[in-house]
């Protein structure tokens, strides 16, 4: 009986860490997909930023190395950059006129 407790504890620890690992990868995939979708939207508006592409590449590189925390962080940053480029393209449809020489 005294052997069973540590064994059970070890099993629970291993199982727990495996679950956390799986959740982290899934979170990364979701974050990356959201960033990629936003960047595609920016592409439709003909206004992608080079920094979005490089941050997406950094996210993928981190994920390939198994560092999902870093990969998620980079994905979220890429999504924010892509959304900023969409905002820029949309607002500039009117704002460009402010710069026009008349």
């Amino acid at each position, binding site marked *: 009986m005294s052997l069973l407790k540590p064994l059970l504890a070890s099993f629970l620890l291993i199982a727990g860490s495996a679950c956390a690992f799986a959740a982290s990868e899934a979170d990364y995939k979701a974050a990356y997909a959201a960033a990629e979708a936003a960047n595609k939207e920016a592409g439709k508006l003909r206004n992608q930023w080079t*920094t979005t592409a490089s941050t997406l590449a950094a996210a993928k590189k981190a994920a390939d190395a198994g560092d999902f925390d870093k990969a998620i962080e980079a994905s979220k940053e890429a999504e924010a950059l892509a959304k900023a480029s969409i905002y*820029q393209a949309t607002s*500039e449809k009117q704002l460009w006129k402010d710069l026009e020489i008349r």
Partner: protein
Amino acid sequence: MRPAIHIVSAAFALAMLALTPPATAAEKIDPVADAKAFQKFFTDKFPKLKPEDFVTGPYSMNEDLHRQWVEKEQFPPYEFSLEMGKEMFSTPFKNGKSYADCFPNKGIGIRQNYPYFDDKEGKVITLELALNRCRETNGEPPLSYVKDEMAALTAYMAYTSRGKPFDIKIPNDPRALEAYQQGKEYFYTRRGQFNFSCATCHVQSPGERIRAEVLAPGLGILNAMPIYRSEWSGMGTTSRRFTTCNSQIRGVPLNPQDDEYRNLEYYLSYVSNGLPISGPGARP
């Protein structure tokens, strides 16, 4: 009862129409007024310069730079490209035809008329595009739009037009006016993570420095194309200029000769009408 409702509805619709503001002057596409205002902006900003001085770009911005330009023109760095272009231009394709067969006046002294609006295609045709189309029509592979051979060809063609004023036409065709307007919009639209438009540098800040570079005025900026740039250690075309501008402000460049760039070239060339072709040029 029904006719009464119709009358009331019609009156309401008419009233709404009357209340709708008419299109403002700013929304009307008026290239002539645009070009006049564009040129006035720069000649007012730099009253010591004559309009033709602007075609030397940053070298027109102060006397020291102007002296550099005079010295540079004695042994111009684009000379090797010019010679290469002349040779390429006169060398027949495999089918025996040559570039001269694709252009009016056999391609000599016509740079000032490009880009033009092609009414059959409904699009803007640039010189670079016309050169590659000429090659493909004659069974030759297209050249890279951004350097070396394309720059050499356009350098030679520009050289044969030196001193001729830009003479870009905008036909009375709504598609041509739309292409012009799209080009104008592109010029003034901020893009890239740095949130810069073409105008940020070339309207708001000509003569100012970005790091070590003195920014060129937008007026006459395409008259000197293609250019040898010390920064590139080589020649570059208008396509190269547009794509690198986009990447410098952290925007993903479009493909050379995409509609946006063709329209931009159309707009920028038109507003420099009357200024002489000075290409090929040299820039820091």
